[in-house]
């Protein structure tokens, strides 16, 4: 028997969770603090871990280190000035935050978004989903010791950020989505560059798979590690790739289509047992599906206005200001006061890269929202950490936390 396989045999012979915690002289419990500044926590997350040897017996996440009161700030801003604020919540999925908020306000106003704007939104949302998954894949692989994945993923992310810069002038927190549509039509050359990216992306995803799928270390670290069944996940309110990894094909893009998602053909990747390997595979497969959606949206991009023609909500085109008194008045009213939204309450859920991102907006009839609340998927999903990693190795805690993909900006808001 070779040395390696003997090691593997001994490693597999260890059984976890057979003895009750904290009994006898050899079973002393140790409380360990991880974070808030620790590279493996993916942000300022602090974990209080109770260990027995190397085995996690209990874990308490402590959050709030990047709480900036964005929801409070929103109450003091005109509706269109809220968009840059909410974008900064979950800082990896800024288009989704803007979409949830704009969708909520559009529902309250009862305005129709033109088809071209809906398609442009889908293109940017799916690009953002790929970008978010790439950051997740790169940093998670880094946690498992695969250094080169990080560079490859960030190379493709760079292409996406360049596209964002082309369409909006910003690489991050673009403020591209507006109430009623998008701020500007895509510039010349965007479609060509996007088509090149769409052609390239599946090959790149194949390369990631080739690097990771047959990697003994990755497979050992992910397979059958920290699974959690569907019913527990549903009870905990977990949505998104984590729920799909456990076999539940719940995806709001299919279930409650918004922004023309019903026009596109795509599949929803699901896992079987809900372990870390399934979580990895589901997100990896979503890279292909998102690319497919972008391709279809690009091919079928309708002509027409990129933002609603309702001048009470959207700014008039620049050239009208020189000739039309009415346009000038609308412009002045929008820039100084903003638009007023009739009183009401709405909850607008969309599928973010991490699950159900719902925006609750209460309007009181004035030009500022009376309440903006984001149901952030990371905030809810974080509760699943403790049941997942109970009685697992501390090294697997790091891998599981990476596969959970929490974004602390979204958790703390």
């Amino acid at each position, binding site marked *: 028997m070779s040395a390696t396989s003997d090691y593997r045999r001994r490693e597999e012979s260890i059984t976890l969770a057979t003895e009750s915690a904290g009994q006898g002289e050899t079973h002393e419990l140790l409380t360990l603090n991880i974070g808030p500044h620790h590279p493996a926590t993916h942000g300022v997350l602090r974990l209080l871990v109770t260990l027995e040897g190397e085995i996690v017996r209990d874990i308490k996440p402590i959050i709030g280190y990047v709480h900036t009161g964005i929801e409070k700030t929103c109450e003091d801003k005109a509706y269109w000035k809220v968009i840059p604020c909410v974008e900064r919540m979950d800082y990896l999925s800024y288009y989704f935050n803007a979409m949830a908020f704009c969708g909520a306000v559009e529902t309250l106003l009862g305005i129709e978004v033109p088809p071209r704007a809906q398609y442009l939104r889908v293109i940017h949302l799916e690009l953002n989903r790929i970008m978010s998954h790439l950051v997740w894949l790169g940093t998670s692989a880094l946690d498992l010791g695969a250094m080169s994945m990080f560079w490859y993923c960030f190379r493709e992310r760079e292409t996406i950020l360049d596209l964002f810069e082309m369409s909006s002038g910003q690489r991050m927190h673009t403020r591209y989505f507006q109430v009623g549509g998008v701020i500007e039509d895509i510039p010349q050359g965007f479609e060509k560059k996007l088509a090149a990216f769409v052609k390239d992306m599946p090959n790149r995803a194949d390369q990631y798979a080739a690097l990771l799928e047959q990697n003994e270390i990755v497979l050992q670290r992910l397979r059958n590690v920290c699974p959690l069944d569907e019913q527990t996940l549903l*009870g905990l309110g977990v949505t998104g790739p984590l729920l799909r990894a456990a076999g539940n094909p719940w995806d709001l893009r299919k279930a409650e289509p918004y922004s023309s998602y019903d026009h596109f053909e795509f599949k929803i990747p699901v896992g079987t047992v809900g372990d870390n390997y399934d979580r990895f595979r589901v997100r990896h497969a979503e890279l292909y599906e998102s690319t497919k959606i972008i391709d279809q949206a690009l091919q079928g991009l309708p002509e027409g206005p990129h933002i609603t023609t309702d001048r009470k909500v959207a700014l008039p085109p620049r050239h009208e200001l020189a000739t039309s008194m009415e346009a000038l008045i609308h412009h002045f009213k929008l820039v100084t006061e903003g638009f007023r939204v009739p009183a009401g*309450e*709405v909850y607008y859920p969309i599928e973010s890269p991490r699950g159900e991102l*719902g925006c*609750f907006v*209460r309007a009181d009839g004035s030009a500022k929202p009376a309440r903006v609340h984001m*149901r952030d998927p990371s*905030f*809810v999903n974080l509760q699943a950490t403790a049941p997942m990693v109970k009685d697992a190795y501390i090294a697997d805690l790091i891998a599981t936390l990476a596969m959970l993909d929490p974004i602390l900006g979204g958790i703390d808001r």
Partner: protein
Amino acid sequence: MPDATGLELIAHELRDADGESVLGTVFMHGRATVIAEPHRVHGVLEHLKDRGYSFLASLHGCDYYPEEPRLGVLYELLDMHEVDRISVKARLHLDAPHIASVVDLWPGANHPEREVYDMFGVVFDGHPDLRRILMPEDYEGFPQRRDFPIGGEPVLFTYNEENYGKSQ
């Protein structure tokens, strides 16, 4: 979403189970809301959960200042099989902001209830671990209430520590 008629049927059903549980219904922008009596909201949610709305999508608070009762706790329920949503709202007075916790129905309500407690001061009776979650433990006041001022928090930097509050 149930339509306006469907919402009335659900409200009837809830009233049949407990006569005083439903105070009213609102149907607006395609969103169905049941306004529940705050002391009976647990029963209402339990009934709706058994009826198919088994997923708690969101739980959040809202301050209706200057209306009375001021505080509101909103539950967004989801039926994943019928793809149907309904929301339940309970309004609470500031002087007795108590409501039953639903952590026993949905363990995932733990963090959201702590957030509502933290931001609005609503006490969830029966919650296993009701502490502040986003604000510091020793923080005083409930920042998301409408009468809590924006910028009411003085910011101290080390460079102006000594002169802070003195006139220039």
